[in-house]
């Protein structure tokens, strides 16, 4: 525990004394660790993503199907250029490999863009924001509605005359903006969430939807192109040497034809579906749920649509591209100067410390502090180190399990989740995911967290802030910890 002074009431000056001296002794060991290796933010990113090239590339955790997609495209195109193009460029025109090359380049470019870019992930709320929201929700619901199962947290907004419900995300501790959704596979809230595509190895959201659409569109053209010219090649050959001999001469063509035949239906179908979605300015999510369909009621209409197809298309494909909200390659602030200052700096430092020490015990510790801090906010000048990290709940993996299995079990249609041709299984998963998320997260979120025991061997920052906290009103702490324990027992 920090020996820092200030055993009396929370006087500003005494607190500043602690903070100024902190740089000299108790902070030194974590400081030294920090100073030697400044971490980038992607290294402590809370979602389930994989990062490559020092944070430049961002993908989902399961990338197996993406490699399959790459292999299929590369092998088929490679075989086409190696075996069919020489014959065709001689017999017909060299423009064929040229156009094929352009299409292939476009397909690969858009595929890599879709897979590697940030789909529009919303960063999780800072502890201050989360605490503020909790306070507002408590005020709105009335403290009497506390207890084990508080009502689900929603906010209603009127957008262009339609009432839209904004849901509270228990993982990210934010009210999701309209059209955003939480992806259970990646464990992130994504803006304008379309779907999670295993073929692309990433979510499809606001920032990469146009790349995804251009990918499937150009892939449809490429598939049709290769299929058509492979058939042409075989026909031309068989005119000279007979059909069976033609097949024997170019066995690669057979393979290409088979691959293209099975893919063309699903890819072209998917392109058509997404063209419809773009022209009506809906997401796959909304379409599957029937959020804006007339079946829900005569007055139900899509408030985001611009009215005409052309504007909708232009807005989706040529509209401005918002930048990534998660600063992947930024450095976690070393916070040495800020420690000498007020809590603004300490919050960040502490948050990063706690993020880098990700283990259950630490989460408990941080959760405790969160409870204490929420209770004692007006009395405190510093905010303790808190993250809004969650204990990984089993519910999530159970959802992602069947999802992944279902999509992998249908190799032919390369549609993503939710699948076009799929059965109700997949469509059930999407609303199920949200319910699960709500239920699973309800109790631990609601607490806001179960209080752990005050650590004896915790990192110095924690003990530092805990020391500060212990000076605050002990009654409210006690009450909160009791409340938290009660909630913990109900999990």
């Amino acid at each position, binding site marked *: 525990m920090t020996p820092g*002074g*200030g055993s009396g009431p929370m*006087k*500003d*000056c*005494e607190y*500043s*004394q602690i*903070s*100024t001296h902190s740089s000299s002794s108790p902070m030194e060991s974590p400081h030294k660790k920090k100073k030697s290796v400044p971490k980038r933010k992607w290294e402590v990113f809370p979602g389930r993503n994989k990062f490559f090239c020092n944070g430049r590339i961002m993908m989902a955790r399961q990338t197996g199907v993406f490699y399959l997609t790459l292999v299929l495209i590369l092998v088929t195109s490679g075989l086409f250029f190696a075996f069919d193009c020489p014959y065709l460029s001689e017999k017909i025109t060299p423009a064929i490999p040229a156009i094929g090359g352009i299409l292939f*380049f*476009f397909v690969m*470019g*858009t595929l890599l*863009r879709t897979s590697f870019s940030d789909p529009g992930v*919303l*960063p999780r*709320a*800072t502890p*201050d*924001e989360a605490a*503020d929201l909790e306070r507002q929700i408590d005020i709105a619901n009335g403290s009497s509605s506390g207890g084990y199962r508080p009502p689900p947290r929603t906010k209603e*907004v009127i*957008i*262009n005359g339609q009432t*839209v419900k*904004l849901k509270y995300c228990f993982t990210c501790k*934010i009210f999701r*903006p*309209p*059209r955003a959704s939480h992806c259970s596979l990646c464990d992130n809230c994504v*803006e*304008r969430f379309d779907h999670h595509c295993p073929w692309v190895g990433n979510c499809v959201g606001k920032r990469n939807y*146009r*790349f995804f659409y*251009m990918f499937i569109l150009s892939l449809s053209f490429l598939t049709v192109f290769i299929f058509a010219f492979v058939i042409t090649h075989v026909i031309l050959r068989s005119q000279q040497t007979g059909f069976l001999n033609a097949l024997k001469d170019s066995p690669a063509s057979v393979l290409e034809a088979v691959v293209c035949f099975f893919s063309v239906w699903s890819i072209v179908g998917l392109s058509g579906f997404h063209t419809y979605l773009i022209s009506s300015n809906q997401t796959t999510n909304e379409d599957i749920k029937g959020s804006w369909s007339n079946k829900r009621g005569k007055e139900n209409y899509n408030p*985001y649509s611009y009215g005409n197809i052309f504007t909708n298309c*232009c*807005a989706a*494909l*040529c*509209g*401005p*591209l*918002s*930048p990534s*909200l*998660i*600063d992947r390659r930024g450095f976690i602030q070393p916070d040495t*100067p*800020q420690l*000498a*200052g*007020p*809590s*603004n*700096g300490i919050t960040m430092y502490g948050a990063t410390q706690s993020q880098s020490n990700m283990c259950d015990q630490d989460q408990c510790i941080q959760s405790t502090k969160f409870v204490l801090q929420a209770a004692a*906010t007006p009395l405190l*000048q510093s*905010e303790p180190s808190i993250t809004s990290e969650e204990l990984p709940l089993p519910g999530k993996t159970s959802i992602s399990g069947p999802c992944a299995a279902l999509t992998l079990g249908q190799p032919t249609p390369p549609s993503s989740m939710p699948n076009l041709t799929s059965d109700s299984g997949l469509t059930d998963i999407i609303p199920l995911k949200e319910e699960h998320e709500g239920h699973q997260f309800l109790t631990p979120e609601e607490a806001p967290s179960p209080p752990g025991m005050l650590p004896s061997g915790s990192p110095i920052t924690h003990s530092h802030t805990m020391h500060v906290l212990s000076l605050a009103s002990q009654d409210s702490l006690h009450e909160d910890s009791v409340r938290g324990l009660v909630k913990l027992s109900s999990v």
Partner: protein
Amino acid sequence: MATEVHSLQELRRSASLATKVFVQRDYSDGTTCQFQTKFPPELESRIERQLFEETVKTLNGFYAEAEKIGGSSYLEGCLACATAYFIFLCMETHYEKVLKKISKYIQDQNEKIYAPRGLLLTDPLERGMRVIEISIYEDRCSSGSSSSGSSSSSSGGGGGAGGR
């Protein structure tokens, strides 16, 4: 940036964080980035309503400009599409340019209006475009919020003088 950091560090050294106010998003226009212009009650005694509203309205204007769908954004989009989006590797998008303007504006506002009143605006970009975070600082050694100059000199000794 250096000047602002310097003066804001002074503010931080001389004052301590009392609380934070969050200005939430206004979704009544759809998913475009707009913030509520409602005046938070915690700022009642700190800043004039009109100044605050003007800041938020200007920010809203900037965001609307960034997300505007019109001739230039279409051109940019079509050009990017034609180059299979490789052009984004070299060029800065219109949105990014406007975000730089916004960040400058916020810095400017902080220096001129908010820091002298013991407040600090945080760029919404750092908070995932969800909120405008306004940090309210209490002056350590005087109840007034505008005397950060004098208090910075007194606490300039690193707060070593514990008793005050």
